[in-house]
């Protein structure tokens, strides 16, 4: 049986349970100094004076940097690119302007972190303050059309207005989502170590080592080949560690100036200003349908905040372009508004998880308006053709997700009337939502080396952020090589390895995984070639097609000959044999098929009608993510995504103080993420599939997909339980009283 597809425990499990997995701040660096950021108290204005004299005299302090003495940095490249991604274009400590609260206004470097932190409190700052711009209802009037960022800003297929005009049933509502912060358990950290030869090693919490290398090279004016970025273990990313944020540049610049290694780890409070977040949205969603529920027109308009210096767009209406067809047409628009917060960024699941709340809530409203069952309504509107591009979907098992999910969930036992199901004094509600998620195709290289001792080494510049990269890459290589897992080792997280892409957008399995597969094939084929044509060629006269490898032994069955990898290498006097894998797919948008992954989420809630408290009682996700390489790690990723969605639905919001423009709840007792007690038994169902368009491995993206449409499924369940339609996330107590 193939190793791929088996529920294998994690290769790095032992390290992680023993506390031996080293994250950035765990790596001891001799002589490292420690840096602390002094944040701006105000959100808009400038510093008039910064008195650092007391801080400079404080014990252990080596240097204090402000905009006056910080070395100048090169501007970030324009246009923005995933190849050299900056989180924000406004660079730290370059001038006296203040654009958001928490913006660094000084960096203190000292022998210990405690000394740096304390000295920071001694810095006296005078500000000239202006009223900050904040996001709110009035933002609707201030929003403008942004330049294109990742995708076209607007879309129009057919005539959506006509589709809405001719509709027998129309839903038009405004839905809003809150600012949210990633709050990875591991705070971002950087340790910058310069060598005398001018090369830089950056120990970095990043989901994108090569992106960090390229961007730091540009901004610091150092050739990229002189920068090595290392990230062996990352304590959660969720998009927030994909791009380069100011602390990395501060640490690297300070270390260079001081000629000593510098470590900078963000505090939890820093994580609400020094790095990005998921932008809030105000979305207007219009659905038109005939009496049977068949969609005639869809219009989705979204507004989201960006910073005063960047044009980040939350593409909330992206999924609406492709999930459901509408007979007359579909239009989507995105506008942005400038506020005094830092630039937003990708956060699980960027774009889709926000827009789906509007779209799939509206679909539920349409189900009630037409009297069509919510599952049936979605099946009725299912399609094999991408409404946006007109291309056929490579694979789309959404119907199976809905049907199989409904059976497992027991949807047929649901009574559709709101407030019709009870458990004692509690109201019970059940809701469903469907989802579509973008498939990213990026190039990736990998190397697989067979060693004389019969082991293999997989080398790839990818990342372990929790998805199980060490585990699944080993599986893929072992499968192709015909080797037991124990003989295959994986190294990753270092820019000296073959270049791969960012571990974002659920792209790693399909793309990085494909490069490992190709590299392993290359190594295996070289070994087969040795058996056929090498010294003493044991398989001479046979053909490559006849050779199978099991347990590291190649067998040419027709001639009844065998030889192990170790024997072949020894016979040919080789210490090792290398296979290179270069996966270079055509961009999804330029391919013949539309590639997306799909899901159906079923939620059950119990609501205390007296208190408005919503508690999850069941949650089921059915996923079409192509072939599942490791059901064990994939299931974990899925439950993680579902719970991420529970947070979006019920708990998470970064609140802005209206007067000062500051995020108020900048800690884990104020910003609520789900705790263990919030989570019931979860069920995960993978619909069988193999998508050869998506990846030679047959895999589509999973991690992001699983956090999409959890919120609308829960909101729809809350409606079913209470009869109250909540169109504003999170669904907190006061909205249900």
């Amino acid at each position, binding site marked *: 049986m193939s190793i791929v597809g088996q529920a294998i425990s994690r290769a790095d499990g032992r390290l992680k349970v023993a506390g031996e997995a080293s994250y950035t701040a765990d790596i001891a660096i001799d002589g490292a100094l420690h840096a602390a950021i002094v944040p701006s*108290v105000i959100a808009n204005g400038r510093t008039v004076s910064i008195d650092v004299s007391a801080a400079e005299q404080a014990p252990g302090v080596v240097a204090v940097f402000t905009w006056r003495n910080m070395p100048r940095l090169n501007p970030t490249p324009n246009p923005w690119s995933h190849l050299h991604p900056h989180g924000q274009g406004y660079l730290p400590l370059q001038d006296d302007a203040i654009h958001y609260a928490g913006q660094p206004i000084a960096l203190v470097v000292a022998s210990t972190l405690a000394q740096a932190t304390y000295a920071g409190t001694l810095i006296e700052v005078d500000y000239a303050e202006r009223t900050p711009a904040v996001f709110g209802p009035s933002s609707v009037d201030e929003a403008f059309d942004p330049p294109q960022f990742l995708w076209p800003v607007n879309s129009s297929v057919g005539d959506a207005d006509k589709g809405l005009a001719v509709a027998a049933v129309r839903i038009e509502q405004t839905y809003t989502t809150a600012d949210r912060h990633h709050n990875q358990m591991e705070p971002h950290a950087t340790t910058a170590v310069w060598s005398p030869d001018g090369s830089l090693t950056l120990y970095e919490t990043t989901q994108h080592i090569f992106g960090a290398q390229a961007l730091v090279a540009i901004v610091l004016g150092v050739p990229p080949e002189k920068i090595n970025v290392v990230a062996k273990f990352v304590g959660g990313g969720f998009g927030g560690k994909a791009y380069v944020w100011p602390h990395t540049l501060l640490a690297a610049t300070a270390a260079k100036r001081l000629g000593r290694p510098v470590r900078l780890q963000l505090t939890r409070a820093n994580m609400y200003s020094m790095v990005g977040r998921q932008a809030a949205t105000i979305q207007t969603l219009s659905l038109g349908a005939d009496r049977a529920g068949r969609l005639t027109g869809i219009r989705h308009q979204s507004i989201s905040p960006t910073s005063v210096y960047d044009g980040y767009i939350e593409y909330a209406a992206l999924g609406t372009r492709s999930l459901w067809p509408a007979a007359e047409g579909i239009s989507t628009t995105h506008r942005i508004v400038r506020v005094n917060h830092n630039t937003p960024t990708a956060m699980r699941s960027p774009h889709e998880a926000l827009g789906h709340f509007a779209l799939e809530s509206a679909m539920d409203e349409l189900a009630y308006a037409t009297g069509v069952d919510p599952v049936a309504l979605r099946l009725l509107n299912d399609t094999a053709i991408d409404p946006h591009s007109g291309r056929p979907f490579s694979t789309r098992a959404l119907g199976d997700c809905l049907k199989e999910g409904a059976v497992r969930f027991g949807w047929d036992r649901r009574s559709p009337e709101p407030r019709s199901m009870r458990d004692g004094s509690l109201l019970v509600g059940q809701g469903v939502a469907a989802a579509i998620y973008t498939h990213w195709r990026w190039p990736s290289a990998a190397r697989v080396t067979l060693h004389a001792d019969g082991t293999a080494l997989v080398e790839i510049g990818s990342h372990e952020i929790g998805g199980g990269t060490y585990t699944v890459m080993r599986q893929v290589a072992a499968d192709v090589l015909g080797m037991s897992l124990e003989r295959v080792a994986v190294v990753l997280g270092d820019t000296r390895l073959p270049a791969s892409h960012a571990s974002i957008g659920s792209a790693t399995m399909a793309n990085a995984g494909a490069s490992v597969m190709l590299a392993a094939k290359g190594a295996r084929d070289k070994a087969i070639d040795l058996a056929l044509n090498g010294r003493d060629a044991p398989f001479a006269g046979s053909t490559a097609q006849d050779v199978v490898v099991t347990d590291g032994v190649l067998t040419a069955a027709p001639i009844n000959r065998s030889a192990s990898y170790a024997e072949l290498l020894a016979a040919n006097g080789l210490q090792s044999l290398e296979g290179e894998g270069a996966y270079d797919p055509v961009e999804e948008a330029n391919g013949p098929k539309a590639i997306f992954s799909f899901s159906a989420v079923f939620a059950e809630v119990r609501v205390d009608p007296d208190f408005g408290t919503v508690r999850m009682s069941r949650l089921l996700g059915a996923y079409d993510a192509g072939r599942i390489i490791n059901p064990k790690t994939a299931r974990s990723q899925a439950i993680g995504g579902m719970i991420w969605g529970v947070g979006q639905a019920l708990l998470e919001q970064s609140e802005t103080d209206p*007067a000062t423009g500051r995020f108020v709840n900048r800690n884990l007792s104020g910003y609520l993420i789900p705790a263990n007690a919030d989570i019931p038994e979860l069920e995960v169902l993978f619909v069988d599939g193999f998508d050869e368009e998506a990846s030679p491995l047959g895999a589509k993206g999973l991690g992001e997909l699983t956090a999409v449409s959890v919120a609308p499924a829960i909101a729809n369940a809350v409606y079913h339980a209470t009869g109250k339609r909540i169109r504003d996330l999170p669904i907190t107590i006061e909205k249900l009283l």
Partner: protein
Amino acid sequence: MRVLALARPEDPAQAIAAHAADPELAFIAGGTDLLGLIKDSAARPGRLLDINHLPGMSGIEALPNGGLRIGALVRMGDLAAHPEVRASFPVIAEALLFAASGQLRNMASIGGNIMQRTRCAYFRDEDGLACNKRRPGSGCSALHGVNRNHAIFGWSDDCVATSPSDLAVALATLDASVIVRGPFGERSIAFSDFPRLPGETPERDNVLERGDLIVAIEVSASFPGRASHYLKIRDRQSYEFALVSSAAVVELEARRIRSARLALGGVAHKPWRLAETEAALRGAVLDDTEALRSAISLSFAQARPLAHNAFKIELAKRAALRALQTAGTRA
């Protein structure tokens, strides 16, 4: 964090004398609140007295009258697990178990618990925003800020913060007293007199003076605590401070209320006793939900919501009702 010195006093007298003489000195027991305040610069003690080893403050004793004497250094977890507390004062056990987390309950002392400072985000802000509790005279950022978690009772223009202790709400419904030793000897403070309303001096959470050391909390059995309940409402199911909570203790005669005590948490600068309600409940039939409801409403005439917390009025009424009814099932 800038703590310059630490000492372990030999006995309470030494601790009290040091505290009375040094305004920059703070007692530390569990440290679970104080260290957070220090890290956020909301407390700046240069010197800490580690009182964890003071004798005679770590026991839970049954008093002859059926009450309890709880040493100030008793950990929340030990108190919650104590068989006598679980059997005779479930409101205390529940208030403790619904608070914090297992780890914190193993650290936090009972004396420290009732000294916890508010969770108001403006007070806790490490950058030191306008806050009269933190810097008297600097103003109250929460009054017109994000104030969902703030008070609906007893607040002043100087401070709208709420007290975070769950245990304090439970104690407010019992005949509890705080045993304090100070430079002039030992005294017993009725728990109802212990926490303060903010008024014009919100920097003072309670009536303690410098040099005062809480040595114990006594709970008398004069008001039987067995028919009691602590109910906590929060957005997250666990590990969160109360949005609204209610403690109830009731004495029944058949199904009729002989006397009841109700207190609310998360609504004021101290546990908020519902005095008018308690008076009106006397003689009410526990099963007469309408009568209970109208009795509860009486105490809400004084409620004054802020911009983001008007919902707490209805929520608190319902919490009080449920707590009362649940306590009644234990009679």
